[in-house]
């Protein structure tokens, strides 16, 4: 038995942090921030919550390097998906002839 057992204290802390994150994101949504900050704040809070779930509830923090690589690969390919598609859509207006 060399499996890492995460203490209950950590699970409770993460659970409370997730609830706080949810409350914050709802409160922030009603406040009118300048520019795109409403979206940025919402996505930042969601990413922090997701990271907490992945690291602690899903034990990635205590997992082998191989699991880390697989998670990182997923994020990397998501980034490619978004970067290439958005770079297409964002640059279409540059063409004077339309598309």
């Amino acid at each position, binding site marked *: 038995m060399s499996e890492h057992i995460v203490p209950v204290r950590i*699970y409770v802390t993460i659970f409370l942090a997730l609830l706080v994150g*949810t409350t914050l994101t709802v409160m922030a949504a009603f406040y009118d921030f300048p520019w795109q900050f409403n979206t940025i704040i919402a996505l930042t809070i969601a990413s922090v919550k997701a990271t907490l779930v992945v690291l602690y509830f899903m034990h990635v923090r205590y997992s082998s390097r191989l699991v880390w690589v697989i998670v990182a690969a997923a994020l990397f390919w998501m980034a490619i998906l978004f970067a290439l598609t958005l770079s297409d859509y964002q640059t279409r207006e540059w063409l004077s002839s339309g598309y």
Partner: protein
Amino acid sequence: MEQQREAGTLGMWVFLVTEIMFFGGMFLAYTLYRSMFPAAFASASNHLDITLGAVNTGVLILSSFTMAMAVYFTQIGKRRPQILCLVLTLILGLTFLGIKAVEYHDKYTDRLIPGHLIPSAPFGPAVNEHGKPPDHHKLTLLTGATLPQVEMFYWIYFAMTGMHALHMIIGAGLLTFLLIYSIKGRFDPEYHSPVEVIGLYWHFVDIVWIFLFPLLYLLGRHLEHG
């Protein structure tokens, strides 16, 4: 045993990567259409029930916690609390689906199911007029928003929450299987890969919702009275 457990966890992660790509495509579609129709997306989003959405977020987070605790109690070999945690997780998962069903029904009565998915009630919500007191069953269109664009939001809303709900239903089935096996006493500190692996799946579905909630329910709230 150690190597077997490691292989099982790794296999589940590879499956979850394919799931991330699957949901990733839908998040991409959402991003593109939202950037094209920002006013319509904000208007349509404001019609969603924020209370039910927030409560469901809490329910799902709590269910992730009880799932993590089920894995914990299996690891230390305490069967009764393990079964209790699995039962709680299952009940919370079904609660989520129940609340989701109430929301879907509200959308149905407000004629917000897109296209002709419901032949007797095609998409055609009533719209609040300027200067009159708003009716919360009617849609309030912000400047620049049109109904076909709002319909696009609801296509994406139903595709994403529908696929998420399907994952929840599958998860509830998997939890039932876990429950039967743990009542039979199949899991102990030495062998419990199914609990761990299904736990990973359950947390993944929770993460999808963590992103869906702000992106679908909260995006236009700051524009509601402006």
